[in-house]
Every structure is written in structure tokens, then in C-alpha cells.
């Protein structure tokens, strides 16, 4: 296999693998930047996957080709509402944010499976008839060399994810709203004295994370799993959380981390066909993302510094 062919096998796989992780990791960035730890990303993805699949199954006949797109929007809305549980518990009631995030994870899976059994009378749904399909992106796929590598037979959702990452970076770092959101996560009391509604900002941030988590979950379900069962989302939410940390709580960093995870995963699968990699046991490439995240946390790869007030409930008037 030549170098070009290798790239041509690796990149499309890395792209579709990363897309759900990018969306969800961006959600994690928003939530944690505002000072609310979101262990519940996994649960939000489950919710998104469940809603995306159910909506798709129900409306595939009426909406036709547009079904998956509408489905991911609906999944975003429902997951944003679902994340309110986490927001209420963690922000208003000042519950332990890790505990309430874990509760989200349990609740989403339990609820999803319970409703699947109620509505479809079995442990898993049927496969959707209108999933996302890969396409050649017009114009761009005609570019020599780069075209076939990046724009042939890819999922549009992968590029939506990258676009979202750039938008998220712009919002967080270039707008007043973003500044307020970050200040609430760094020093909520200072923000409060400046007239920023700390609770309001945090609520908004958690709901954005819910929407993006739901988006990630539904994109995963509609491109990769195609149905909903107990095994649809297993660990992708935690991978995204790892991407948030590995990306140092920065939207573009999180995107890079997610893309890197996809790349490592893809490489571990392709490696058997690549001369110099064939001798490396695939397991090393498979565990690479986790090892790197631990190294990042341990401070070996630059300093991974969390927002200062991350995980600390804000109590108005306390010093």
C-alpha cells in the first residue's frame, strides 16, 4: 500500500469516527468553562441517540431524505431539556456535580431502554431506513490530491462538527457572551459583582452542552449504529470528556483531540496493512488516546489547567 492509499483509508475513517466526539466534546467545553463539571455527557449522548433513532423511525416516511437532519435537531432540543435536570441539581440545588452527572448517565440509559421496550416491545429498535450516507462534497472533491483525501465519500456531519468547533471558539473567545461565560467559570464572585447573572450563564452553558451532547449522540446513532440498544453508546461520552481535558478545555483543542482519537483508532485498524506498523501490536494504538489523556492530566503534555471554579457551586454572597 502506498502512502497516498494509506492516507486515503485512514482519513475518511478518522473523520466519521471523530464527528460525534467533536460535537460532544464541544458541549463539555461549554459546560466546564462555565464551572459545571459534566460527567453526564455519556447520558446526554444516549438521550440524543435514542431521540434521533425514534424520531427517524417515526417520521422517515413523511420527511424522506430530510429525516436525519430534522432528527438531529429534535435530538438537540430534547437533550438540552434533559440536561436541565443536571443544571437544576448542580446549579440551583448545589448538589455534587459529579454525582448528578452520573445520575444523568444512569437515567438516560434506563429511560431510553424502558421507553424502547414500551414503544417497540423489544430490547432494541429496528434499524433506521434514513440514516446519514457519505457523499462527495461538490466542487471541493474535484481538487487534485486533497479532494480525494478529504472530500470524497465523507459524511457532511464531519465537516459540520469542525465548523461548530470554529464557531464555538469564536463565541467563547471573541464575543461578550463568551467572556461572561468563561468568567463565571473562573471567578464567579467577581463576575457576579460585575452584574453577570452567574446562575443564568451556567444554566445556558449546561443546556448548550446538552444540545451538543444530544447532537453528538444522534449523529453517532444515525451514521454508525443505525439503531438504539443498550450497546449503542458505550463510552463515547467518556471519550469526549477525555478530549475536553486533552484539549485543555479549548474548543479547537477539544476538536483536535477528538480528531486525534479518531486518527489513532483508524490507524489501529489499518496498521496491519502498513509495512512499518504491522509489527506494532494494534493494542498500543487502541489505548493511545487513553494514555495520552492520562499524560495530559498528569501534566506531561503542557499544563492542562481546568477553569478555576470548575465543580464548585456558586453561593451568592458567600466569601
Amino acid at each position: 500500500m502506498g502512502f497516498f492509499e494509506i492516507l486515503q483509508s485512514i482519513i475518511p475513517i478518522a473523520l466519521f469516527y471523530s464527528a460525534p466526539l467533536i460535537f460532544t466534546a464541544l458541549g463539555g467545553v461549554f459546560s466546564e468553562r462555565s464551572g459545571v463539571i459534566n460527567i453526564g455527557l455519556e447520558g446526554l449522548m444516549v438521550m440524543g441517540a435514542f431521540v434521533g433513532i425514534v424520531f427517524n423511525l417515526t417520521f422517515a416516511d413523511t420527511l424522506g431524505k430530510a429525516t436525519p437532519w430534522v432528527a438531529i435537531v429534535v435530538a438537540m432540543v430534547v437533550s438540552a431539556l434533559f440536561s436541565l435536570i443536571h443544571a437544576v441539581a448542580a446549579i440551583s440545588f448545589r448538589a455534587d456535580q459529579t454525582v448528578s452527572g452520573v445520575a444523568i448517565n444512569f437515567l438516560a440509559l434506563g429511560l431510553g431502554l424502558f421507553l424502547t421496550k414500551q414503544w417497540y416491545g423489544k430490547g432494541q429498535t429496528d434499524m433506521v431506513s434514513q440514516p446519514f450516507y457519505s457523499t462527495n462534497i461538490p466542487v471541493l472533491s474535484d481538487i487534485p490530491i486533497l479532494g480525494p483525501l478529504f472530500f470524497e465519500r465523507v459524511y457532511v456531519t464531519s465537516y459540520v462538527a469542525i465548523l461548530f468547533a470554529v464557531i464555538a471558539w469564536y463565541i467563547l473567545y471573541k464575543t461578550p457572551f463568551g467572556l461572561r461565560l468563561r468568567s463565571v467559570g473562573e471567578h464567579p464572585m467577581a463576575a457576579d459583582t460585575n452584574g453577570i447573572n452567574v446562575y443564568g450563564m451556567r444554566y445556558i452553558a449546561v443546556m448548550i452542552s446538552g444540545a451538543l451532547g444530544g447532537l453528538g449522540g444522534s449523529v453517532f446513532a444515525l451514521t454508525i449504529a443505525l439503531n438504539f440498544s443498550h450497546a449503542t453508546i458505550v463510552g463515547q461520552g467518556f471519550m469526549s470528556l477525555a478530549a475536553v481535558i486533552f484539549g485543555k478545555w479549548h474548543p479547537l483543542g477539544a476538536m483536535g483531540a477528538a480528531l486525534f482519537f479518531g486518527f489513532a483508532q483508524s490507524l489501529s485498524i489499518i496498521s496491519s496493512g502498513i509495512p512499518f506498523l504491522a509489527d506494532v501490536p494494534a493494542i498500543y494504538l487502541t489505548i493511545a488516546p487513553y494514555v495520552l489523556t492520562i499524560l495530559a492530566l498528569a501534566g506531561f503534555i503542557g499544563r492542562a489547567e481546568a477553569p478555576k471554579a470548575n465543580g464548585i457551586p456558586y453561593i451568592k454572597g458567600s466569601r
Partner: protein
Amino acid sequence: MKKNRFLLLLTLLLAVGLVLSACGSSEEGDNASDKSTDNGGTEGTDEGTENTEEASDIKVGMVTDIGGVDDKSFNQSAWEGLQAFASENGLSKGQGIDYVQSEKDADYLPNLTRLVQQDYDVVYGIGYLLAPAVEKVAEQNPDTNFAIVDSVVEADNVASITFQEHQGSFLVGVAAALKTESKKVGFVGGVEGELIKKFEAGFIAGVKSVDPSIDVTVQYADSFGAPDKGKAIAANMYNSGVDVIYHSSGGTGNGVFAQAKDIKNANPDAYVWVIGVDRDQYEEGAIGDTNVTLTSMLKRVDVAVKTVAQQAADGEFPGGEILAFGIKEDGIGVADTNKEAYTDEIDKVVQEYKEKILNGEVTVPSTDEELKTYLESLEQ
């Protein structure tokens, strides 16, 4: 104040949990009874005429794993087997046969014990997940007979129901070899180990029996629940020219189907096929008017469950034995739902090999060593 609020939250959560779980059991009860009347009705008309023997007084129960009794897979198949047994022996749900559904892993032990306490003579544990629980309960209740599906429990009162998956894999391997045009086929496994090795060895042997020059690519996903990895592996295999993939990887296989359908969507003339596993995966392969599922390797849990129940009713319960259901017992089969792809010509050759396995002409390998010897014997 802070503490009070937290307590309030906790109470609310518990209350919600209570309400939800209360809904759960009652609704499920309804479902179950609906279902059994449905099935009872149809089975009754089918078998009603034969139903002349006297109702036997045996009580047979089963405990599902977390998939539930209507999972379209092992649990459902097992329950269908019990129902078939019941209608032949004049029994019905609640009158001789019954099932208990497990909501979580921790339910296995209490569910098994519950059936024992209700004086069931034979209690099935469906799925390897129940093996430890069956082992424990069987030890505590030496007078009750147990059966475990898809696993082995060593005890005098436990019958272990296993399948000769390598035989079925051999047959779908034959089908794959006849279907491939590129002379390249692929095998996607869940987690490498003794069990999935049987699938792999049988499949390779089947392929090579038809045409030793066909290349078989084998890759494991290291998980039964990673559709993303399954899709990536399938993408890589199809890219490299493989046109038939046999997956034996549970939920990971969803990704294989997703990739095959994606290729088919981009190019309706693309020549890509998937072979399903455990049950008929025809529905998973549907895309528009076509279907990428060539065939599926079927494990007939229903046949196995029914056979063992009948043996118990006849007073010949195979306690302490390891039963290996294969082609001979009709415990393993090959799906022929996709008539367009799985043509009569293919079926004819598959049936020939089935005969050869039955009359002992072909002994299907189930391990790497056996496969090696088998392939060497082919070369001669």
C-alpha cells in the same frame, strides 16, 4: 439549608424512581400476557389437532438475561421453544411453563431462586451471563434441574446447552466463497477467544473448501459493542477489495451493516455483502429495495430448549452433560431469506456440504490447530 435542599432532591429522585419502576413492572406484565395470548393463539391453531395427549405435569421455567423475552434474539427464541414444547404437551404460560425477565445483572440469582421456590422442575438460564448464577443456585438446590444456554456449568443437575457454531460458520463460508467475485472475503470477530475462534476456524475452512485460492482477512474489534470500530474495520476491508464480510461480533456488527449500506447507497451496483450471525439479520441489511445481507448463521436456541424440555418431560434430563447442538440436531442453520442474493445454486452447494458434514465426510475444525490440519488435508 443546603442539607435540606439536598435531602429534598434526594427524596424527589427516589420518588421518581419508585414511580417509574412501579410503571415498569405492571406495564411489562401486560405486555407479557398480551404476547403470550397472541402466540398461544397462533400456536394453538397450528398444533391444536395434534394436541390430544394428556397434559403432563412438568413445570419448566426460564430466566432471561437483560435483553428481555422479546429481544428478537436468544431470549425470544428460547421462549418460542418453550411455547412449542408446551403446546405439544398441553401446557401453557402459567400452567407448566413461564419466564421471568431480568432487568439487571443482579436479578439473575433472585429470579432463578424464585422459580425454584415455585417448584419448577427445570429452570433455564438463557445466555452465558447467567452461568455464575445458575452454578450457585444449582449447588443450593440439588433436587431441581437446570439448563444453561451458550455456556458450560459443571454440576450433576445442570445441562449445558452449547452450539457447534463452527459447522454453521463453515456453511456460510461456503456461501461466501461462492458469492465472492474478488476472491477476497473478510471475517470480523468480537473478542478473540475460544468461542469466536470456532466461528473463525469454521468460516475459513468453509471458504477454502470451495476455493483454496480465496483470501480471508480476519480482524477483531476487541468488543461486542463497538459499532464505530466495526464500521471502520468494514470500511477498510471493503476498500481493500473484500466483497463478503462475515461478522460474529454482536453489536459491533451494526457498524459492518452500516458501512455496507453506505457503499450501496453511493453506488447501487456495488458488490458488497454481509453475513449475519446468531439470528436472521435480513432486516439489518435492508436498504431501499435491495438488501446487503447474503445469509445468516442461525443458532436455533428454540430447538435446543425444546429438545431438552422434552427430554426432561420423558424423564431423561441430561443433567451434567454438555450438549453440543449442531447441524444434526437442527440446532444450527443457514438463513435463506434473501433469495435474490442467496441463490438456489449457492444453496445447492451449501446443502451438499451439509450432507458431507452429516455423514462425517467433512469434520469442521473449531480451533487454530484443527484448522491448520484441515487446510493441509485440502492441499493433498
